[in-house]
């Protein structure tokens, strides 16, 4: 099979490299400013943009067979699913239903069970 590899122009590679460097500088700068609740979302947004650039341009997913893009996307989607549903547990424990220990009634002798 004649595989034609797309050759990415050096100009684009350089631009992406510079953008990545710039984003790294921004990461360092924003890490020194306290933005309160926005700290984490901002850092993650920058990191995600960098990852997307690397995947699309350096790893050439943008030019490659789209099945490869699908494979990567599926991986990412399932990580998101895993984190989202796990956080639905860890972030909401005790936020619904009984949070106080229940008052336990003594069990009648006749039931055959021991009282707790």
């Amino acid at each position, binding site marked *: 099979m004649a595989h034609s590899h797309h050759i990415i122009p050096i100009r684009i590679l350089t631009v992406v490299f510079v953008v990545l460097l710039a984003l790294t500088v921004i990461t360092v700068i924003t890490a020194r400013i306290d933005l309160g609740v926005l700290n984490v979302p901002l850092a993650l947004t920058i990191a995600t943009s960098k990852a997307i650039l690397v995947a699309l341009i350096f790893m050439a997913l943008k030019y490659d067979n789209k099945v490869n893009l699908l494979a990567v996307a599926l991986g990412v989607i399932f990580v998101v699913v*895993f984190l989202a549903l796990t956080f639905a547990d860890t972030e909401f424990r005790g936020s619904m239903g009984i949070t106080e220990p229940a008052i336990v009634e003594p069990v009648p002798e006749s039931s055959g069970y021991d009282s707790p």
Partner: protein
Amino acid sequence: MSDTSHNYLNAKKGLWSWLTTTDHKRIGILYAIACGAFFLLGGILATFVRTELGAPGETILGQDEYNQVFTLHGVVMVFLVIIPAIPGILGNFVLPLQVGANDVAFPRLNLASWYLFMAGALMAVCGWLFVGKVDTGWTFYTPYSSGASNAVLWLTSAVFVAGFASIFTGLNFIVTVHKMRAPGMTWNRLPLFTWAIYATAIVQVLATPVIGITMVLLFLEKLLHIGIFDPALGGDPVLFQHFFWFYSHPAVYIMILPAMGIISDLMGTFSRQHVSGYTFIALSSVAIAFLGFLVWGHHMFVSGQSALSSIIFSMLTFLIGIPTGIKVFNWVATMYKGSVWLKTPMLYALMFLFLFTIGGLTGIMVGVLAVDVHLHDTYFVVAHFHYVMMGGALIGLIGGLHYWWPKMTGRMYNEKAGVIAAILVFIGFNLTFFTQFFLGSKGMPRRYHDYSEFLETFPEFAALNMTSTIGSYILGVGLVMILIYALYSLVRGPRATANPWGACTLEWTHTETVPDEHNFHDTPLVTRGPYDYHLADDVFGPKKES
């Protein structure tokens, strides 16, 4: 098996030629031998468990031994039998033939998968013999597994290594289906077995790395004391269950989807009809593969996970019933007005339909939040998952092995023996596991070696457990009988013809009785669907009566 014709079995000779083969058919046979041996081991362990529970009080195993035996039974059956068996044996043997390819996409990787699988198995067994016995159950829940014993690390490493075999196999099948189909073999002409193995492969590739990561985290915690699951170190034990079930629920679909694929092919061939709802069956496999990733929390309703996530997981669990129901209805519809031929493989297909439906419906029952609070960790759950794993996945495998046996070995087995064994298996299975629904709904807990304490309140526990144990012996007799007539058939069985069932997929219509090393003499050109029985009989050969 001395045969005058040239085929994959006699193409090369000697043990070495088998251990270094890259022929997908021979690798399938290697898996068959390995999984068969592990099934025997797991089965013997199960007999110990059932014998201990046959009568109240301590009978043959002490409580620690009991815990060790059911743990090894679970680990062997899940990781060394049900997960690898169908893709490893029948996926390898049949899938390339069904798509008209001369091998899988990466034949060497395929052999490497088998060696990884064997390495994992060897680690599990050696760990058991020389390091120590694990008693955590196959689920390795923390804090049991984060306790003192290093044996857990051995066993979890074994699972890690065997997991890679599963990933490589999945990868191989995905690429094979995408890249190696014969001309004319369009996606809507793929046999449903191949569709099912394809959907399974997606799950294998996406889910299995997570069990690997989980085992690595367990390792890091034990060796480096990083707090991940252990509250004493600042970890969260319930997090382990999230990790574990994020793999292991999809893994139940790694077990059942291939079996569903076998059943679809059997239903078509032995009803001599186009499989009803072909597209729906094919796509419901894919739907199950994806939905299967969204429901893992139904194993954790009483773990202390948040009420919010329990509600979400319970609702998502109900959704799985839809694609599953689609399949069951279509299988029944395939038989409707068909010419149903009750040969041994079809008996197993019908058995699957019956047993899997019970397993699936009880799955919906335990998926109901309030009901599960009562049933969790009782024998009801044990009955549920044996109906799906044994009644579903394993019965499907046995049916598939009978169906493809003539292709794999060139011999027929004794049909009468096949029918008798099938009846024994059916009776034994239901006696063993249906009783456990009663036991569980009355509250008999799982993983206890003795129930004499409960007898005062529930005297019927004794009779029910005894029935279950007797059933398991009948089941065992049925299974041993299959082994015996299979071995007998290898030596003395009458020679098979190229297409004894009059099936119309490529492995039957376009290969020799026992396929040649290279599968097809010429690349097949596919001009019709996999179940086009409405075309004239002379295309596929008339249905044979015997």
